[in-house]
């Protein structure tokens, strides 16, 4: 979620107008998510937040691409967007690292938050390794509990 605009909020740097429609669209999508009722099944308790994680990831990726890949926005605007929390700067800082290029969310690499034995999340394991380690070549993993990621290793 972006920060709430107040009087003290700095005016957006030049170039913001160009990306504003897309950001508004992201905002709409996020609002829509809130309207959807969550499931009451215990097994689906986490799933409500998955969509939010996914959207945050998508928006951060959009801003990351704009600045680093397309080089379409200025440094100034990029910093402003990060400060106003349009993108998750922690997540972006991970994407710059080798092996984390496709990381889904920060929860999945924090060993303290991951449920099992303090390891990283299963979605970080390459698909090939999952297949290799399974007894009969069938992978039962579909989505991770933290953010509903179906696999975000760099080799996938």
């Amino acid at each position: 979620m972006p920060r709430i605009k107040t009087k003290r909020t700095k005016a957006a740097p030049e170039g913001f107008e160009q990306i504003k429609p897309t950001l508004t669209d992201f905002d709409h999508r996020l609002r829509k998510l809130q309207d959807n009722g969550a499931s009451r099944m215990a097994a689906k308790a986490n799933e409500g937040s998955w969509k939010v994680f996914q959207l945050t990831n998508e928006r951060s990726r959009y801003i990351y691409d704009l600045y680093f890949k397309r080089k379409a926005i200025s440094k100034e605007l990029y910093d402003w967007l990060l400060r106003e929390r349009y993108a998750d700067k922690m997540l972006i800082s991970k994407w710059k690292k080798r092996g984390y290029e496709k990381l889904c969310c920060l929860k999945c690499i924090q060993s303290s938050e991951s449920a099992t034995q303090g390891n990283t999340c299963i979605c970080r394991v390459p698909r090939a390794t999952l297949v290799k380690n399974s007894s009969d070549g069938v992978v039962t993993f579909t989505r991770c509990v933290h953010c509903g990621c179906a696999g975000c290793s760099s080799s996938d």
Partner: protein
Amino acid sequence: MAQRHFWKVYKTPDGEKYYYNIKTKQSTRERPAELDAASKDEGEDVPTKNKLRKLGPRAVHSVKLLNDWFLVVFDDGSRRFKRQESGDFQDELPDEDSIHLMSKLPAGQLDQLCFAAKTGQGKENPAYQETLAEISALRGDTAKDPFTWKKEEETSTTKNVEIVSFNGTSDSEPVSSNEIKLVSGYDSSDDDNEIQSADEDPVLESVQNTGILEEEFTSLFVEYSLDPYSTWSLQSKKIQDDARFYTISNDTKRAELFEKWCTRQAQEAPNILDANEENEVSAEYSDDEADSLEPTKYHYLSHIVSKAIVSPSSLPKDIRSQNKPLFKQFKIKSSLDKKTQDAFISKLLFYYKRLSQDQRTEVFEKLLSEKSKTISRGLRNSDKLKEIVSESELPTESYAIETQLLTLEHCMGLHGPNGSLQEEVRYYVLDIKTKTQVLKKFLEGMLK
């Protein structure tokens, strides 16, 4: 259906093979005789052909020589010879007439052909066409001698050049004398030819096709005036009703193309801005050129290091504590923060610890010669430069030497186009006096 097709191969849980007959419901661990017999008489040529296709080098060009011999060039750059009837490849050419013919080819022609085959140019490559023309001309010559050849007479009189597909054991059609068959894969229904064309043509075509498709797809973006500052998931909604949207079936591929297009758009837009800025910058430079004798970024720091006493164990902080007054005098703190200072000093200390004065001079000269191209491009104010360079003697006062160095650096465009040189540590490995001397010598050589 042949007997052998009823046999299926399975594996037992412990990994051994066993055979099961689906008709008689009989199973055995031994290989049934029918399977062997059947594969011998009918299965033979199919697998070998497939093998030829998959393994080993692929034949690219084939040039007809004399007495039914062919020169075949493979895509790994090797060449071999083949007689039409036997179809086996041989490394040496046993036919004397053909050897004679090949020796008449211009030197280097064959090497060129092999190289072209290796680099994967198609049948259209000029080296191949040249060789064909050459050979046909030569064959025309030799054909005038009636003794050496009777068989090929019809072909050679019309200077026909023919290419056979490499794994065609025999070209069953009689050679038609008027027809110039440049690419046999296209006009023959021979089984082997089909394999070859299946081998080469679709690849080429598909490469071209995807190129065209991608272009067409990209043109959609402009047509529907998509926003290059937006995401693919949003923008794709605008164009997905168009039929051309589906020319590319993979959505990740589409997204990739979109990204590429966006990058291009973004680059085109600020280019104009950049150009303007550059103009402004250069204008500024010409304005205050007169009084802009500005030292390079690490000028004073390197000066301090060159004056300092460097022992094998000295660290940046030793240098700092040693030369505190100098640091203060040159106001190093105001231009460089402590971290960059330390980083630079430790890099420079490496050169001072390991290398002698002469070696450092060498390092510096090497750097200059490496960058000589960019330096020569960045040179300006050449009158002043010539004037300084022509003075062979260095001034005696240290201040004058420094002024001269700064002027030289200014003329070299160290604060403008050659700014990158300022960042280079190797540019600072000498003390000011030696540096001025070497630089002068270098520029003298360059101006000549």
